[in-house]
């Protein structure tokens, strides 16, 4: 199934050879419900970068999350992936861009399985034919962060609110970095988020556990009890705190739930306390691009972003 001849790390220009004028943006359930500001900012940023965004209400959830908890068998997720990607290729002939590492990992992985197992491809196509879909696999799955990085120059040009003095730390997220082949940066020592922070005028901070998994804390309480997730997360936040991190960014609303919502609960258990706000990378870029603060949706966070806004002179009462 795997192809060891494939390159592990590719240059952004290799990954996305041509800068698209138009992309299909895949809606993330968590990114549009838990943190609606994420979806809003991703669109805002892409628009500022000169990319036209197409969305479609006929797109459904990628169905990956419950699958990874083994909550149901794999057939529906294969068929759902084929259906969503067939919809994009048939209606728009565009590539698919996601803004959630979960959607990225599942769509990419499931697409890989469909493309490499003719029997699964047939199963999917037989099933979705009843609604007029036919999956061929022409729509490639990308993450918007890859496009951000490719458009680093355009990002620099659009900064009107430089984040000077802000100490920003990255959480890349496993389902991007742990992709075996064809990702933008070395899974062990990625730096492309840090390069984006620098473009925004912020100070990138490297902390020891920055590669570490978010602990899957949405599944916390279900598949993953406290005793698995909490010490794990505490280890991550301890190392971030040590480096004096002001704010952390993710490129996955799922990681965002884990890292943001769990902090108050960690404090109750005697870890920390931590007060490191966690936002989407798109939200941070939108902030630097001068988006109206209300439209960024920081108020969805459990660990308040207000101290950061204050630090930047953007808090309530500042002007």
């Amino acid at each position, binding site marked *: *199934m*795997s192809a*060891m001849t494939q390159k592990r790390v590719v240059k952004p220009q290799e990954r996305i050879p041509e800068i698209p004028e138009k992309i299909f943006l895949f*809606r993330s*359930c*968590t990114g*549009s*419900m*838990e943190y*609606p*500001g994420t*979806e*809003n900012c991703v669109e805002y940023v892409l628009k500022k970068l000169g990319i036209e965004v197409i969305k479609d*209400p*006929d*797109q*459904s*959830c990628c*169905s990956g*999350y*419950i*699958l*990874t*908890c*083994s*909550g*149901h*068998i*794999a*057939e*529906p997720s294969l*068929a*759902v992936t084929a259906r969503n990607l067939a919809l994009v290729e048939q209606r728009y002939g565009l590539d698919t861009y996601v803004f959630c590492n979960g959607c990225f*990992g599942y769509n990419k992985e499931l697409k890989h399985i469909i493309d490499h197992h003719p029997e699964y491809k047939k199963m999917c196509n037989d*099933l*979705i034919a009843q*609604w007029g879909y036919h999956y061929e696999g022409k729509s490639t799955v990308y993450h918007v962060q890859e496009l951000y990085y490719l458009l680093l120059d355009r990002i620099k040009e659009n900064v009107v609110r430089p984040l000077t003095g802000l100490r920003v730390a990255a959480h890349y997220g*496993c*389902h991007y*970095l*742990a*992709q*075996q082949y064809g990702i933008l940066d070395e*899974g062990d020592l990625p730096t492309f988020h840090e390069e984006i922070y620098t473009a925004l005028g912020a100070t990138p901070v490297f902390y020891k556990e920055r590669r570490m*998994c978010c602990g*899957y804390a*949405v*599944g916390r309480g*279900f*598949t*993953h009890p406290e*005793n*698995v997730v909490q*010490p*794990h997360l505490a*280890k991550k936040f301890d190392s971030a705190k040590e480096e004096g991190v002001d704010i952390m960014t993710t490129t996955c609303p799922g990681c965002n739930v884990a890292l943001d919502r769990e902090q108050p609960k960690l404090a109750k258990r005697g870890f920390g306390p931590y007060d490191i706000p966690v936002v989407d990378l798109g939200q941070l870029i939108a902030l630097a691009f001068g988006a109206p603060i*209300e*439209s960024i*949706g920081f*108020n969805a966070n459990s660990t308040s972003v207000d101290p950061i806004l204050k630090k930047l002179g953007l808090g309530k009462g500042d002007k």
Partner: protein
Amino acid sequence: MPRENMTQWDDKLYQKVDRYNLVPNLDECLQCGKCTGNCPVAALHPSYNPRQIVHDILLGEVDRVLQSEEIWRCLWCANCYRVCPVDIHYPLLMMQLRYLALENGYGLKYVTPINKYAYRSLECGLTFVPGQKGIDKIKGLREGIGVDPWPKVSKKAIHEYGEIFKQTGAYDWMKALDEVQAKGEEKPVTLTFLGGRLVDERYDTEEGS
């Protein structure tokens, strides 16, 4: 403490686990332990050991792997897969191993609660839709940032999503798990990989978990 105190073996265990043929190269495992060395769960809970789980699946140590509590600790972060020298897709192995455990009556308590979101997703095409109070909060937040109160998901998307779950048998599969649980037939899981390991008493004892 002797590690080999399990007695039930099944030569066909690997084939039974890899039902979707997603880890056809499992028997190429070098037992190098890079997976374990890079696993964040193993770092905190030494009784969770992906290398040993691969070993036991290949050997057919059915008892230990199916009733294991440890197999429910994997975060699916795929760090193991990232570093594996022979590209064994351990998370996909874990997904399928859990299916087998569930079908044998183990570990239902870990998935049936989260499946309430799976059932709800069949009605709205989105996963993790909360209860009414949560929905109102989301609507408030969305309106606050100036977008439609609810993500646009068409009736067509919802219908087709639900049908896919029904027509592939996934819906019945989930319901069957609920039934086993309702009848009180779920079997207990235990820490089966403790033998011979240093443990963290706070977390790796039966009481701690």
